[in-house]
């Protein structure tokens, strides 16, 4: 009760200041409010909806190629209305289109869903609300960031439908394959669109990141010191820094590749023969591209994962009703992971012909990443330990993330050994590793975030029971899809192959591949439970209370449906960290960040007495 009183008292004291009562009388036109909005909350939702759209497209693509892998004999001419000429007259999937599907699936999931969809939604939504700011540092650049993303999405989407098909050289677009239109049809116009789309995507991402960093550093409310920031903010902040430092490198790589493709330079091309013909390219280095790509590519996997980890930290602490275990250690491990992520990129290139001695150095650096990762896992578990756990759907998805983070991280240790990687590189073992640790884990983080902040975003609650069903089916389904891939990977299945049944060695695994495909169809199908719950609840969900999860962070002090500017009165000041859950002596099991110590003498620790 004390809390509620404190809260209202605070608001009224805010009202007393006449000077912050500047209500906006000229209402913005509809289009500036919902389409070209500069409000970070609207932009976050735009990212969320676009991300969901892309997740559906990317998921559908994976189903098509899983059909091919699991049931290579099947006649899939029933897909002809959708895929047209990419289904051969014999009712089979076109081989080059298979490669294009894999490429687009990877690109869409990594960049459009788990980078733009995840950071774009939650960094945008939560940073101003949780640090206590009216909006992002520059609403205009923020709006621009979304619309660049939109443009890049449109181009990528168009590329799916052009006659030569979308890009087909893998999401890592290694030249020479991606550089020569003669190589596969996917390296024609599809690849050009891919590169242009990604260049625009990078601009969008940099504009976003610039805003996130500036907002966190400059616009924190009074009392919100760095060491009082919720871990979500730390994660988004560091993620943005990684993005700003690494994406320009991909931009450079893409630019040089564009020159190679369209202007006939040879940065990445050399000594190539095609159908007996020597091409004129001289002096380029394909390895150089790999260095540039993975200098972004490895940080990128953490750009995808860290926001999910931040969301998880917040939810696990709130729903265990316990302070996060080792807050400082969590911050330092985020920083440590971020730092290390820049010096391990060549573990993707152990077998590329790189100097093996260099390989050993990268192996050691890679294995060191396990330390901060283990610290984080340990802290999650220690937070849960003897917590007063409340299993909301968001909490379940967060715990699911921890599970995937651990099981996928372990296989990372195996792959990180440059000797073991000779066998495992480019097999399904790698596919299993990164789908578990990056794909599924980050997806779970994103879903957890949606379930947890839905009441704030839409002012209504999602249905819990559907949430539980969604969680369990997805959790079991995802393990069924990705765990068996370890076995077929160890058995030597290379990734990106169209057909395995023509090799004797692989015949014994036919059933397992069929099982994976069925599990994939199942797992994707159950996402409709989520989609239904999400859209239904936006319109029909139970109305959300002010602070449904009894959480400490500032966003729950804003009105249930916050307008532009977030707080109608003065911005709340912050007096404590975000994790005063179940504090001994306190009346309630949570004390929001905007409650001064003077109002909680019964629970103050000795050093906090000074601040009363």
């Amino acid at each position: 009760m004390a809390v509620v009183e404190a809260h209202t008292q605070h608001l009224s004291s805010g009202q007393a200041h006449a000077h912050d009562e500047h209500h906006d009388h000229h209402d913005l036109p509809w289009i500036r409010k919902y389409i070209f909005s500069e409000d970070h909350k609207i932009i976050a939702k735009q990212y969320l909806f676009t991300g969901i759209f892309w997740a559906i497209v990317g998921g559908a693509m994976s189903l098509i190629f899983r059909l091919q892998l699991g049931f290579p004999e099947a006649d899939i001419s029933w897909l002809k209305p959708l895929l047209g000429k990419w289904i051969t007259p014999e009712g089979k999937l076109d081989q080059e289109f298979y490669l294009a599907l894999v490429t687009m699936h990877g690109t869409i999931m990594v960049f459009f869903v788990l980078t733009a969809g995840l950071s774009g939604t939650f960094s945008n939504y939560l940073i101003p609300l949780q640090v206590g700011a009216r909006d992002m540092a520059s609403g205009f650049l923020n709006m621009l960031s979304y619309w660049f993303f939109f443009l890049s999405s449109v181009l990528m989407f168009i590329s799916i439908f052009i006659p030569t098909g979308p890009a087909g050289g893998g999401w890592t677009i290694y030249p020479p394959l991606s550089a020569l239109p003669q190589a596969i049809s996917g390296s024609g116009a599809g690849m050009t669109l891919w590169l242009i789309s990604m260049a625009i995507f990078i601009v969008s991402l940099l504009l976003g990141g610039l805003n996130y960093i500036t907002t966190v550093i400059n616009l924190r409310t009074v009392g919100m010191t760095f060491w009082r920031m919720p871990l979500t903010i730390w994660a988004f902040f560091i993620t943005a820094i990684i993005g700003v430092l690494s994406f320009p490198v991909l931009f450079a790589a893409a630019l040089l590749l564009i020159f190679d493709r369209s202007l006939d330079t040879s940065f990445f091309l050399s000594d190539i023969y095609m159908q007996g013909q020597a091409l004129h390219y001289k002096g380029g280095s394909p390895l150089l591209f790999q260095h540039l790509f993975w200098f972004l590519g490895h940080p990128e996997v953490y750009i995808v994962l860290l926001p999910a980890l931040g969301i998880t930290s917040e939810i696990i602490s709130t729903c265990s009703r316990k302070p996060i275990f080792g807050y400082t250690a969590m911050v330092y491990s985020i920083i440590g992971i971020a730092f290390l992520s820049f010096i391990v990129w060549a573990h993707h290139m152990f077998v590329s012909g790189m100097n093996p001695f260099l390989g050993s150095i990268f192996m050691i650096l890679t294995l060191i990443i396990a330390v901060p990762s283990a610290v984080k896992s340990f802290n999650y578990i220690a937070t849960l330990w003897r917590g007063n756990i409340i299993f909301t759907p968001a909490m379940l998805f967060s715990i699911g993330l921890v599970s995937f983070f651990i099981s996928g991280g372990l296989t990372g240790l195996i792959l990180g050994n440059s000797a073991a990687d000779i066998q495992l590189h480019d097999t399904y073992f790698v596919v299993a590793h990164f789908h578990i640790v990056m794909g599924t884990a980050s997806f779970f983080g994103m879903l957890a975030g949606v379930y947890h902040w839905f009441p704030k975003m839409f002012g209504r609650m999602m249905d819990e029971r559907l949430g539980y069903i969604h969680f369990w089916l997805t959790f079991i389904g995802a393990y069924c899809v990705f765990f068996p891939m370890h076995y077929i990977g160890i058995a030597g299945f290379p990734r990106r192959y169209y057909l395995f049944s023509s090799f004797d060695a692989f015949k014994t695994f036919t059933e397992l591949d069929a099982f994976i495909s069925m599990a994939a169809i199942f797992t994707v199908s159950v996402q409709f439970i989520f989609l239904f719950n999400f859209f239904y609840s936006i319109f029909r969900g139970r109305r959300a209370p002010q602070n449904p999860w009894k959480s400490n962070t500032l966003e729950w002090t804003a009105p249930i449906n916050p307008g532009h500017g977030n707080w109608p009165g003065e911005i709340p000041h912050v007096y404590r960290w975000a994790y005063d859950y179940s504090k001994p002596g306190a009346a309630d099991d949570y004390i929001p960040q905007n409650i001064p110590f003077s109002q909680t003498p019964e629970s103050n620790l000795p050093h906090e007495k000074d601040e009363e």
Partner: protein
Amino acid sequence: MTTIDIKKTALYESAQRPVHMNPKKFAFWIFLVTVVMLFASFTSAYLVRRDAGGWLHFKMPAIFAVSTFVLLVSSAFMHWAYISAKKDNFGKLKIAIAITTLLGIAFLVLQVMGWGALVEQKIFFAGKYANPAGSFVYVFSSIHGLHLISGIIFLLVVFANVYKMKIHSKNMLQMELCTTYWHFLDLLWVYLYVFLLVNN
């Protein structure tokens, strides 16, 4: 739903914030970081590629020394413009910005002439006879040139705002950003030029 006028409240609120740097300025510095990263990747790509062998050694045409000098001089005028703005000396400010802009354009013309000199040395950007050693020079200078064009546009905007009396000693943000950007682009080119001299 109440909405509030963010611009007005922000003024009062920013006075109490823990960090006092202007957010726009801060964001601008981060933008510069992304440009630094872009060119850091170009130059390290250059080194990685050079060490892989098959590298063509050649002399940078002398004209690039001239263009570098011109750009350095333009920075001096930029600084003059900045000081004049701070002293509200608008006559000098206009002259200084005009000269900076003209020198910037001269720099670009010289760079293009530099490409001409490269072609005369048979150092091509692309095609059958091109070697990455040469292509990189074109990439460095053209991408830097594109940034410099954006810098010139920025100068023109500032110039227009000086006429509209929007820039003066009490309203220096745009002037400061423009000055920083111009010096930055200058420094960036000096780095690229010295890099090419040392590493070719």
